[in-house]
C-alpha cells in the first residue's frame, strides 16, 4: 500500500521533470510552448462548457424526477442471488454521472462497510468503466459530430459486460 502511495505522490513531479527536461535539452522554447498549450487548454474548456451544460441538465432531470430510482427499484425485483439493490442504483448511475456514482459509492461504503460484499462490489463498479455519456458527448461534441452511429450502444454494452464480470469476480474472490 505504501508503494502505491509513494508512486501516486511522485508520479506527476517525475513526469513533469521528464517532459521539461526532454524539451529543454532539445532546445524547445518550453515556456512559450507551455503558454500556447495552456491557452489551447482554456479554449478546450470553453468549448466543452456548453456541452456539459446540456448534459448536466439532461442527467439532472432524469435523477431529480425519480425515474432512475424507479428503474433501480424495478430491476431489483429480479432478485439475483447475492446482488444488493443499492448496487443496481450505482450500476445504472455510473454511465451517466461519475461524481453522482462516487457519492453513491461513498454512501454504500459508509452504510455497508468498505469490506462487505456490497462495499467491495460497489468499489469495483466505480473504478471499472468511464462515464459513458460524458465521454461520448464531450468528445463528439468537440468536433461537432451528432451522428455517432453505434458508439452509444458500444459504450453501454461495455459497461454491462464490465459490471457482470465485476459481479462474478466479486463472488469468486470474496464469496
Amino acid at each position, binding site marked *: 500500500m505504501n508503494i502505491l502511495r509513494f508512486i501516486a505522490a511522485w508520479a506527476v513531479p517525475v513526469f513533469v521533470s521528464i517532459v521539461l527536461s526532454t524539451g529543454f535539452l532539445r532546445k524547445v522554447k518550453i515556456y512559450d510552448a507551455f503558454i500556447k498549450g495552456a491557452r489551447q487548454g482554456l479554449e478546450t474548456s470553453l468549448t466543452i462548457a456548453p456541452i456539459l451544460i446540456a448534459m448536466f441538465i439532461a442527467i439532472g432531470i432524469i435523477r431529480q424526477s425519480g*425515474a432512475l430510482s424507479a428503474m433501480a427499484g424495478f430491476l431489483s425485483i429480479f432478485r439475483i442471488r447475492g446482488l444488493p439493490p443499492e448496487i443496481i442504483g450505482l450500476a445504472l448511475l455510473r454511465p451517466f454521472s461519475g461524481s453522482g456514482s462516487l457519492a453513491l459509492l461513498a454512501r454504500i461504503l459508509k452504510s455497508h462497510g*468498505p469490506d462487505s460484499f456490497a462495499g467491495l462490489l460497489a468499489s469495483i463498479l466505480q473504478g471499472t468503466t468511464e462515464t459513458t455519456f460524458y465521454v461520448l458527448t464531450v468528445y463528439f461534441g468537440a468536433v461537432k*459530430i451528432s451522428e455517432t452511429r453505434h458508439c452509444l450502444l*458500444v459504450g453501454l454494452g461495455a459497461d454491462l459486460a464490465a459490471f457482470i464480470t465485476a459481479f462474478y469476480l466479486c463472488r469468486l474472490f470474496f464469496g
Partner: protein
Amino acid sequence: MDQVWFFLIMAGISWAAFHGRADISGVFLTEAREAVLFIVSLAGGIAFWSGLMKIAEESGLAVFLGKIAEKPLSFLLPGIKTYPRALQAITLSLCANFLGIGNAATPLGIKAMQELQNANPDRNTASDAMCTYMALVMSGLTILPGTVLILRTETGSGFPGAVIFPTLLATMAGTAAALFLDKFFRSCGNRKKHRRLEAVPWKKPGRAVGL
C-alpha cells in the same frame, strides 16, 4: 445525440409530471450552474496538462511514444499509420487514460478526435476509426482506481487495495466487449449501407487543426 438528449429530458419531465414532482423546475438552472462551476474547477488542471503536453509534442516525445504504439494501434485502427499526427494524439490520450489523469485525458482525447476528424471523409458522421477509438476510451483504461482507493481508506477499509486486481480484470473485460461490439456493429453497418469509411484513403489535412 439529438434523440438521446430529447429522450432523457422528456422522459424525466414526463415521469416527474406523472408523479407530481414539481421540484424539477429548478433543475435546469441549478444544473446549468453546476456545469459551469464544474468546468471552471477543471479549467486550471486542463490548462496545466495541455501546456505540458504541448512541450512534449514539440520536443518529439509524442513522436517517440507514437512509434512505440504504432503496431498495436495499427492493428485496431487500420490506416492510422498514414496519419502520424492522429497516431501521436491517440497514443498520448491513451497514456493519460492509463494513468488516470482526467484533466490530461480530456483535452488529449479531444485533440485525438480533431486529428481523426481531419481524416474523416464525412465530417458529420463518426468515422470507423473514431468509433474504435471511442470504444477504447469509453470502456475505461485506468489501471489504478485512485479515487476509489482513497475513499476506501477513508471509510476504514482493512484492505483498500483488495479491489485493484478485480477492477483491472473487469475493465479489461469491458474493453474487450467494447472492441468486439464495435467490430460487430461496423460489419453490420457495412453490409447494410455499404459505407466502408475505412476504405477511403486517409487524406492529408487540408487545413490546420484549430479549436
